[in-house]
């Protein structure tokens, strides 16, 4: 038997189908969803594919119901996920906090309509002290990798994790190879509820308050929540991801995430070939934000141009970490299609190029 695995074959898949297939490849066995554009394709794909691989997919009656079902499934040890767009994820905030604080691993697919949910995933709208690990792929092939990574990291740290998708990732069809990522093995989930320890005096409990049982007291909310805070700090230190190109001698660095990052990278490459000393930095984890890497990438740059399709969200994290705050300029903005369901005209290479050129012409 050959030690080298055969590469998976190229398949033309719509983004949401590719993500569904990647989730199933990661042994996701439970999925819930409520139709909402552009997440709907993911629900439909899961509806079709999940039962065929022995799992369960429920088209739920509300996003709140859905995320709570997913929590239940995950509590029994199964890999479970749900998703929506920003509006639906807004309804799930309590449950995301709950899962963070009672240590239930789930994956949430925010197939967002634009880039306006950056605060939602990085700051969170739930209660208590928690952070949510969020990956923002730039295209479908990266989304396929990130999906697998998110299930792995959710289990590794016993936390909810988020994929920040968007309409282009959801609806573009790309030839992808559904290659399983080579990820380290994880310990068994002995905390998972299966009923087996009933009556033994060692029965399990999943509770944000973590008070434990009378015969086996737990740390209680004070110590438990402090321990969780330490866990999030350790995740912050070790799970940052980013990509940087041509930053070493760059006078100007463009910063963008997600699909916007794919467009800015394209334009920066063009400008580089035309002789501009310009570089590119793309945070891949929105939380934990790769602050030190950004600081290093932008050190010495005269201009740090932040391109995001919102009124200025990621730029706050850029300001927090960049050495020279005066070098920072916002060159993006809100841009929505008339339907309200997708990006507007600003997500376009000529537009982006125009804005970068204009910024280069201004005196720093």
């Amino acid at each position: 038997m050959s030690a080298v695995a055969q590469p998976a074959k190229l398949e033309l898949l719509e983004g949401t189908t590719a993500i569904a297939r990647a989730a199933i490849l990661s042994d996701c066995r439970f999925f819930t969803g409520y139709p909402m554009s552009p997440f709907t394709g993911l629900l439909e794909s899961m509806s079709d594919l999940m039962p065929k691989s022995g799992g369960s997919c429920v088209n739920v009656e509300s996003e709140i119901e859905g995320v709570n079902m997913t929590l239940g499934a995950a509590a029994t040890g199964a890999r479970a996920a749900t998703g929506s767009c920003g509006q639906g994820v807004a309804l799930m905030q309590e449950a995301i906090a709950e899962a963070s604080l009672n240590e239930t691993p789930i994956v949430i697919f925010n197939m967002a309509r634009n880039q306006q949910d950056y605060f939602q995933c990085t700051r969170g709208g739930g209660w208590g002290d928690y952070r949510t690990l969020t990956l923002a792929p730039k295209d479908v092939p990266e989304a396929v990798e990130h999906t697998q990574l998110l299930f792995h990291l959710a289990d590794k740290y016993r936390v909810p994790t988020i994929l920040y998708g968007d309409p282009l990732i959801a609806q573009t069809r790309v030839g992808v190879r559904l290659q399983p990522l080579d990820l380290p093995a994880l310990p068994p989930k002995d905390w998972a509820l299966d009923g087996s320890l009933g009556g033994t005096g060692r029965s399990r409990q999943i509770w944000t308050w973590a008070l434990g049982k009378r015969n086996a007291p737990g740390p209680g909310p004070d110590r438990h929540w402090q321990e969780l805070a330490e866990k999030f700090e350790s995740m912050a230190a070790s799970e940052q991801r980013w990509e940087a190109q041509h930053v070493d001698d760059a006078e100007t660095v463009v910063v963008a995430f997600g699909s916007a990052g794919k467009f800015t990278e394209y334009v920066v490459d063009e400008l580089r070939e035309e002789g501009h000393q310009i570089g590119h930095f793309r945070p891949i984890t929105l939380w934990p934000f790769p602050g030190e890497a950004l600081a290093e990438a932008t050190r010495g740059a005269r201009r740090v141009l932040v391109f995001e399709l919102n009124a200025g969200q990621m730029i706050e994290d850029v300001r927090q970490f960049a050495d020279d705050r005066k070098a920072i300029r916002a060159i993006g903005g809100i841009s929505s299609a008339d339907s309200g369901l997708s990006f507007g005209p600003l997500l376009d290479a000529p537009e982006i190029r125009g804005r970068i050129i204009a910024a280069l012409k201004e005196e720093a």
Partner: protein
Amino acid sequence: MDVVTTDRPPGQEASKVAEAYPSLLLGDHSLCPGCGEPVALRILLETLQEMDLVQKTIAVVGHGCYGNFVQIIDLDCTLCLHGRAPASATGMKRMRPESVVFTMQGDGDMVNEGLAEIVHAAARGENITCILLNNGVFGDTGGQQTATTVIGQRTKTSLEGRDPALHGHPIQIADIIAGLDGVGYVARGAVGTVRGVARTKKMIREAFESQLAGEGLSLVEILTMCPTGWFVTAPEGPDYLGESMESVYPMGELRARPNGEAG
């Protein structure tokens, strides 16, 4: 046969020959004297033991005074979000169909916050058993009105007594659920009297039998005393329950199990 005389004290010291305290309870509850919820818990745990289901049962407990039961029940359990227990239980049962999954919710939990969850779980025919502890108040937060508070009942948010003109009418959730396809068994009991306790325990057993037979969602509503929330003394609780609640929520089977069918 030895006849034991009773005209003088026994010659030997008394000794404990049996423990009537259920072994599934890891400690005392901390609820009010006169509360009906521990009674309901006890008959439920006894039923699980009698049916030999203890090592395959997962409990999903909602938010209320009974929430603290997660500290004293020797079962694999979770305390889930307010109202969402049927949804959480759905995920669990679908992933572990060989487990017995039950929810325990108060009326505020199930009928206020969680109305959508219980209705949809029932309509979908999820094979879980839902236990509703109905005392007509939000007990844990001090006794405010819920969707099951009866007309005339005084609560912290209806101090003059519930008035339909101001506060609307109570919802008989068990009747609504009993009318849905997808349901296997629905019954309503009460733990204010010895007879009620015995009848309710039988209903709980029927409900778990229904789950084991895969008949759909089973619901047992249990009227429980809440003297604190009702502004009465502990000994007055059972009478108050009978007088104020049982006429609005009559005991009995609202949806019998399918006859002779095994799911």
